[in-house]
Structure formats: structure tokens, C-alpha cells
């Protein structure tokens, strides 16, 4: 079995990407994802890979597009304001059906916001990482080990469905250290990409990587086909963790850093005899609607906890669809909620049901 090592979240992401066969990283400096790029700058030249510090986030994501078009695994990483700039390229990646890995180590916003951990890019990640009708895969790890595992999954599913994938974490997860086991490199196989613009070698017709359809009927049909793929993904790729949900009266829905806080709050509530549980989405798109709906009969109320003014709560409400009350508690601007704060919310809800 592979060795267990102590790693910082951002560095573990970088090492996992290298293990997953990624040899092309294009980035631009921003806090709090710095360690990831620095790790790549150190490692890539030694293994024949490319680390390139682009002139901007716009350039970085378009370099990723070029590398992906050429048929290799490529990635970029940034934090909230930088992701806003990348959205142009992400839309083109989606429109060209190109896979790519994008890491967002979220910080507080809007604008320059702050540099402390936040989850206020949920809407951007799951609803609008650029213009046009499209979705990207969004993964939300809550431990460093899970980050490593999700890097592999993000690359594999991105390749399988030919679409961009994002790992959405936050400054807390990026900066903290935990023990991890890195998977063997052979765990993932980069598939053949017969569609790539890698030179036809006079053996096939030319490949065109393009998102322009001047004929509206063709564009509509392309979007319809892409959304059929999205429906398939919604059916097969929802992932979440359930904690004490089977008998829970109050089910918390939380992801990433805030789910770690909620785990403690659930334990504290259980110690008081309150039947609390948690659904922790691991995929934010596709959102684990099926699991939430499975618990609609037994649960009496839902509580969404986020490090934002309330974004994922929209998806929880859509999944619950009025069947049960959905409450929200959030801290934002770079504040991480404390377990007693969340427990207080659980107690309040428990008093009313």
C-alpha cells in the first residue's frame, strides 16, 4: 500500500494532478491558491511537464484550451476573482466539448472581497461559469484525501463526458494539512482522443475544434445533444455522503469546509438527544437531488449551512420542492461558522417541529 504523507491541501491537489497524468499547468498568481502553482513550478520541469505563468487568467484558461485541444490533460487553478476572468474560456471549453480541470480555492467576494475562506462562488460554479447554455462538473471535497481522490475522478469524468470539471474548495481546505495516501499513477488511463487537433498526419480529414454555429438550428441541435449528455450525468454521477440521516428529524445540507463544522454540530445535537443528520454533497453539479428526495418522508426539516449569504440553499429548496421547511444559516466574508452557532440553529429548528 502506498505511503501516508502529511500534505497541504493545495499541494496535494497539485501532486494528485501529476499522478493523474497531467503535465500541463497554466496559471496566474492569486491568494489563497499560491502553493498549488508554486508546487507545479517546482515539479513540472523535473518530469518533462509544462508549468507556465500566463500574463492573465484569460490567457491561462485559453492556454488550457489549446493544450486540451491538442489532446493532453491540462489544468489551471485560481481563486474567486481569477475564476471570473476564466469564465470566458470555460464557456468556450464547454462549447468545444473539451475536457479540462479548473481548481477554485474560493475566497470572499464580491469584487476584490477578501482572502479568507468562502463558499460564495457556488452560483457561479454550478449555474454560470460563463455565457450560454452549459454545465460543468463541480466537485466539493471536504478533506485533503478527498481532494486527491476527486482530482482523479474529475479528470476521468471530464474525459468521459468531454466537458470541463471544477474542484471547488476554499482557502481553509487549500491551506490546511492532513495525512493523505496518493493513488498509484496507473489508477487512471488517459483515453485516446481521436477528435484532437494534433495534426492529421495526412491520415484523416482535418479535425476542427470550434464552438461557432452560424445556423441557429444547428446551434440549437448541438445544445440539445449536449443537454442529453447532462441528463445522463444527472442520472449516474450524483455523489454525496450521508451522516445519521436514516432516523434524522433535522437534516443539514453542507459541503466542503462548512460540512466539517456541521459534522461536529450534528454530534453535539445527537449528544443532547436531538435527531440531527447531514447530507454532504460531493458533486455540486450534478446536485445530489435523489438523496435529498429519498429523505423527504422521514426528515421534518432541512438546514442548509454555507459560508455565503445563501446560494446552495436554492438547490436544496428545488430538491425539497416545498415538501418540508428548508432553513438557512450562513456566515460570509471569510468567516467560518462555529459548531456552537450551527448547534444553536439546530436547537431553534428542533423547538419548532
Amino acid at each position, binding site marked *: 500500500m502506498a505511503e501516508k504523507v502529511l500534505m497541504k491541501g493545495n499541494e496535494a491537489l497539485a501532486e494528485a494532478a501529476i499522478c493523474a497524468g497531467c503535465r500541463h499547468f497554466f496559471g496566474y498568481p492569486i491568494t489563497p491558491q499560491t502553493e498549488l502553482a508554486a508546487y507545479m513550478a517546482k515539479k513540472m520541469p523535473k518530469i518533462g511537464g*509544462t508549468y507556465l505563468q500566463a500574463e492573465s487568467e484569460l*490567457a491561462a484558461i485559453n492556454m*488550457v484550451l489549446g493544450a486540451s*485541444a491538442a489532446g493532453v490533460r491540462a489544468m489551471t487553478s485560481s481563486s474567486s476573482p481569477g475564476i471570473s476572468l476564466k469564465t*470566458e*474560456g470555460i464557456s468556450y471549453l464547454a462549447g468545444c466539448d473539451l475536457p479540462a480541470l479548473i481548481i477554485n480555492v474560493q475566497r470572499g467576494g464580491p469584487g476584490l472581497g477578501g482572502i479568507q475562506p468562502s463558499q460564495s462562488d457556488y452560483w457561479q460554479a454550478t449555474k454560470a461559469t460563463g455565457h450560454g447554455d452549459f454545465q460543468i462538473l463541480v466537485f466539493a471535497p471536504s478533506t485533503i484525501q478527498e481532494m486527491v481522490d476527486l482530482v482523479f475522478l474529475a479528470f476521468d469524468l471530464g474525459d468521459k463526458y468531454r466537458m470541463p470539471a471544477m474542484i471547488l474548495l476554499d482557502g481553509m481546505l487549500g491551506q490546511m494539512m492532513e495525512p493523505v495516501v496518493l493513488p498509484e499513477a496507473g489508477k487512471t488511463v488517459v483515453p485516446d482522443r481521436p477528435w484532437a487537433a*494534433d*495534426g492529421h498526419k495526412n491520415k484523416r480529414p*482535418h479535425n476542427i475544434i470550434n464552438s461557432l454555429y452560424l445556423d441557429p438550428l444547428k446551434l440549437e441541435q448541438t445544445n440539445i445533444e449536449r443537454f442529453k449528455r447532462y441528463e445522463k450525468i444527472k442520472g449516474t454521477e450524483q455523489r454525496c455522503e450521508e451522516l445519521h440521516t436514516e432516523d434524522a428529524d433535522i437534516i443539514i445540507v453542507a459541503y466542503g469546509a462548512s460540512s466539517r463544522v456541521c459534522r461536529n454540530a450534528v454530534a453535539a445535537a445527537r449528544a443532547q438527544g436531538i435527531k440531527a443528520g447531514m447530507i454532504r454533497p460531493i458533486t455540486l453539479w450534478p446536485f445530489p437531488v435523489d438523496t435529498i428526495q429519498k429523505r423527504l418522508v422521514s426528515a421534518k426539516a432541512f438546514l442548509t449551512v454555507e459560508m455565503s449569504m445563501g446560494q446552495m440553499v436554492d438547490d436544496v429548496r428545488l430538491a425539497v420542492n416545498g415538501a418540508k421547511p428548508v432553513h438557512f444559516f450562513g456566515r460570509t466574508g471569510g468567516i467560518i461558522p462555529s459548531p456552537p452557532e450551527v448547534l444553536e440553529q439546530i436547537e431553534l429548528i428542533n423547538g419548532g417541529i
Partner: protein
Amino acid sequence: MAIVYKRPHALTDEVFHYCPGCTHGIIHRLIAETIDELEIEGCTVGIAPVGCAVRAYDFFSCDMVQAAHGRAPAVATGLKRARPENIIFTYQGDGDLAAIGMAETVHAATRGENITVIFVNNAIYGMTGGQMAPTSLPGQVTQTTPYGRDTNSAGYPIRVCELLSTLDGVALAQRVTVDSVRNVRIAKKAIKKAFENQIKGLGFSIVEVVSSCPTNWGMAPNDALKWLQDNMLPYYPLGVYKDISEGGENK
């Protein structure tokens, strides 16, 4: 009977959509002839811009990628870094290269990115219907400078070759035009050198082609070429601004 002139293999059978008198067709052909002569079609990847030449991906027989407005040099960087053995060229207009994509242009150049850039400067945004470009001349009437480009408010045109020639990463910066047989021949030589430089690994090569846009200039094709000669060439002098290749003017 020997064939002395035919459609280059590197051009597909697709019919150009360009306006009568537009010089894109000539420039496409010169690139395609170069690809044929260097026998590199199988390893060449072209990048189509946003603008009139967006459909270049349908016209060239090599693999093609369509880039966002201005981002072609960044996309080219990704393609080249992923497959250094391939030949990568971008085809960009003045709005694409010198306005929205100026950062990508300058930084790809200063990195000495080993790519070939064909820059079509016709002093106007053609596709969107004739707005002011970064290279529109002082006093030039466009849809968005209806009283002529006023340098007090709209600033001055950018001379791209002169600007890029100051950067260490640039192997070739040459301005040409295609208004006459003689100049077409010079343009062909420059384009060929820009591709040969990449094969030799010399770095960033740019060929700026001063071009006409009869439709949006509101002129007949011949009048447009005359306007180009009388107005554009004095502002954008033809010539080699940097050339580090063997026999080049500055080594």
C-alpha cells in the same frame, strides 16, 4: 501539359465567403502554398480568430481550432507546449490582435513562443460592420468615428511590428502588403520565413499584412487598394523590423 498553377492542397474545396476585393483570399492562399511547399500540412494546426476570418477553420485542410476574440496566441501557446513537434499558426485581424488580444500578443512574443502569427491589418472591424480599429488612421471615418478618428479622444493607431520588434523573444517582425504582384511575392517570402523560423525553433514570428476592406471602407476594390497605398502605407511603412534568422538584418 505541366500544371503551373492550381489550388493548394492545404486549402479545402470550401468557397471563400469573403467580400469582392477583400485580400483575405490572397493571404489564405499564400499560407496554404507555404504549407504545401514545406510539406507540413499533417503536423500543422491553425487557429482561426473572431472576425471576418473566423471561418478559416473551414478553409484550411490542416487541423484547426477556433479561439475566443484576441486569445489566439494563448491558445497557440497551449497547442505548442502540448505538442512542440507540431507547427502552430494564428490568423488574426487588427481588433483581435491589437485591441482585445494585445496582452496575449505581447506576452506570447516576449516569451519567444515558437509560433507563427499572420496579422491582417485593414484598419477596421470588418465582421461587425466597420467600427474603429486600434489601427484606424487619424481622421479615418468609421461607424464609431463618424466625424473621423479624433486623436484627442480616440488616441493614435498602434504600429504593431515596430512595437513588437523591441522584444527579445521576437524572431521576425515584418510588414508586407498584397496590393501588387511584386508585393504578393514579398509577402509570400515573409510568410514562408515565418513558418521556417518555427521549424528551426527560432521563436515568435509575425507577418503583418496591410490589407483593404472595400466593403467597410465604402470603396470599389481598386479604389480601396489606392487608398491603402496613399494612406496606410505612409503610416505603416513596409519592411523588416526584426529578423534574427540567417542573413537577417539584425542578428
